[in-house]
């Protein structure tokens, strides 16, 4: 069980990807820019990356985005698939530090988590996605950078709010305190 890539990780990728794909249909619209709205599935990706680490995070991101796009929208926008892995990795490398399952997700870790998510989202959506869009699809630069910026904004909001809430709550649950007293 303590192996680096054990059964639990395999299952986490499988079920995590399924969650990510299913939640594709849940969108909280943000503005009138195509392909940009708050995506709760990003919070789930961040959550799973923070618990299971960068490899699991990266694969859920890649696979989930590609499958979700294909299943729901019938096309795969590859330049936006790869950045998803960057987010998974960027958050996942701190998984050990977060120690979510041991109840270690405290205020300090919430800050670290958010720094990590903002940086990796910036890399993914402000840098990588638009650059890929330009090189692979030859889309106009200003359009893709604006799109990227909106995606960045939406993702840091949803991960910052929902992701942090989910992790803090789960950490509280997983690392149970034994000092509970009944009150009158």
């Amino acid at each position, binding site marked *: *069980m303590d192996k680096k890539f054990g059964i639990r990780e395999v299952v986490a990728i499988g079920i995590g990807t399924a969650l990510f794909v299913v939640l594709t249909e849940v969108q909280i619209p943000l503005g009138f820019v195509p392909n940009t709205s708050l995506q709760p599935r990003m919070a789930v990706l961040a959550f799973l990356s923070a618990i299971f680490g960068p490899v699991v995070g990266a694969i859920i991101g890649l696979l989930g985005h590609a499958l979700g796009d294909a299943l729901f929208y019938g096309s795969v926008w590859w330049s936006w698939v790869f950045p998803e892995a960057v987010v998974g990795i960027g958050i996942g490398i701190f998984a050990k530090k977060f120690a979510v399952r041991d109840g270690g997700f405290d205020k300090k870790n919430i800050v670290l988590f958010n720094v990590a998510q903002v940086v990796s989202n910036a890399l993914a959506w402000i840098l990588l996605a638009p650059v890929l869009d330009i090189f692979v699809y030859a889309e106009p630069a200003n359009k893709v950078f604006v799109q990227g910026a909106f995606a960045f904004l939406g993702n840091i909001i949803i991960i910052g709010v929902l992701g942090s809430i989910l992790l803090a*709550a789960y950490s*509280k*649950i997983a690392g*149970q305190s034994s000092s*509970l007293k*009944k*009150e*009158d």
Partner: protein
Amino acid sequence: MDPIISFKDFSFKYRAQQEPSLTDINLQINPGEKILITGPSGCGKSTLAHCINALNPCSFRGETKGTLLVDGVMPEKEGVFGMSKRVGTVLQDTNGQFIGLTVAEDMAFALENDATPQEEMFHKVDRVADIVDMQHFLHHSPSELSGGQKQRVSMGGVLVDDVKILLFDEPLANLDPATGKTTIALIDDICRQEKVTVIIIEHRLEDVLYRDVDRIVVMNDGRIVADQRPDDLLCTDVLTKIGVREPLYVTAIKHAGCTISPADHPQHIETMNVEPYKEKVRGWFEQTKTPVRENNAPYALEVEDLSFAYNPREPVLQHISLRIRKGEMVSIVGKNGAGKSTLASLILGFYVPQSGMIRLNGKDISPLSVKERGEKIGLVMQSPDQMISKPMIAEEVGLGLAVRGVPADEIEKRVNDTLRICGLYPMRHWPVSALSFGQKKRVSIASILVMNPEIIILDEPTAGQDYRHYTEIMEFLRKLNRELGLTILMITHDMHLMLEYTDRAIVLADGQLLADDTPARILTNEEISNRAYLKKTSLYDLAVKCGIGRPDEFAERFIAFDREHGHADALGSSAESAAEREDRQDSVDA
């Protein structure tokens, strides 16, 4: 003959626990034996099973003392992989155990992991599919299968490994009574034909005893308290003392004042010799009165000629009409896919019916939205984990009010009132995760009650619960019903629940209303029972064998009598806290 499983002075303690979960276990099981291990939740029966397949201590850390030999090896040394070649485990959660994309692949899973050549896999899977009678479903996906079929696949999946021991962890927990019966028959056939040793962990004793078992091992508080042949065990009071339900006919004979003798073979009512008890049972029947229940309250819910289909060629519900009075407790029964959940979904407004009408307090509710209906009709899902969305209890219970914009101080007052009713007030500042399953269930009920609904609908309120938890949950619901005048509808396939706690049962089969009658009458009617995948109650057989002409009356009187005299055992306060303690242990296990 050497035993295939042998525990000697064996103890086991989970790393996270103070007290050992198994103490001084001495148990020998011979090859080819069929053993039932029973006991209340948390008695250690699952821990014992996990020691046999090496999940303890290899996956769930802990310390062992004493010796355990399984098929000549020590599981602890052999590890989970090593033991999987000798012991096939069929888990309670058959959907969780179904890993493959199709039936054939799932059955081949262990072979695949062993890098078995493909040709050989085809061959073995075909053979095993034959044994579990799934040969016509090889390419079906899990979503196309019923619970019983998934369980067959799980059995096939462990049989491919030519295991010597089959371990069933609560095989009946998620099945309807009729399917449970078939499962027990199948396990029995496999045991005889494949010459494997079978261990069944289950608290639904009567259902397991549908076919012979060689011995019953009874556990309580981590110790073995009895290890006897069924005929002997049923004549003692061991089971009732620790809160495991005896077969109903046994209880009935005991209520009549008889002492049962092993020589009369009480293991099966069909073959039991009831001659010595006949007179007393008949006498008891004459003396006891049928409870009179009358309810003339106005109708709370009326469903009139309701039909629904996802697509016109496959109707899910056809022309359903029923009426529920205020303050009634009613069960909705029928096999999976009969339309029970669809009916609830239509009442709650998740789906729109093709035709027909639903009235609440005489008023058509078709103009009401899901949210508006939700204020009057509450829905409690089967798994509390699927409902609870806040980490803290008080917050969770108040959620429905908060989203409706109720002021904070009123929320607090109503939440506290509700928590008091539900017995959760002392724990109001606890995280939900610190609660036992039964308490979580109460939280999910409280979060509905707080909105003052007139009707609540519960989906399988007691699925997978042992007698003690079952009684705890159901007595709580009865209290709500009596004290708050709440109308309660329960979707269930638990026959005991029907009999003991509901005034009326509505039976659906293939989308049609099959019967609407007292549970006692339904469960003593063979034709209806069969069509609804229920099982005729053993009280019926007892009544017939004793020459009582009105078996349904007999069942009714028994239930009323048992309710007054029998339930105290299951609700003993010490027993309850033990159950809760053990529940927490279960959550540590997971």
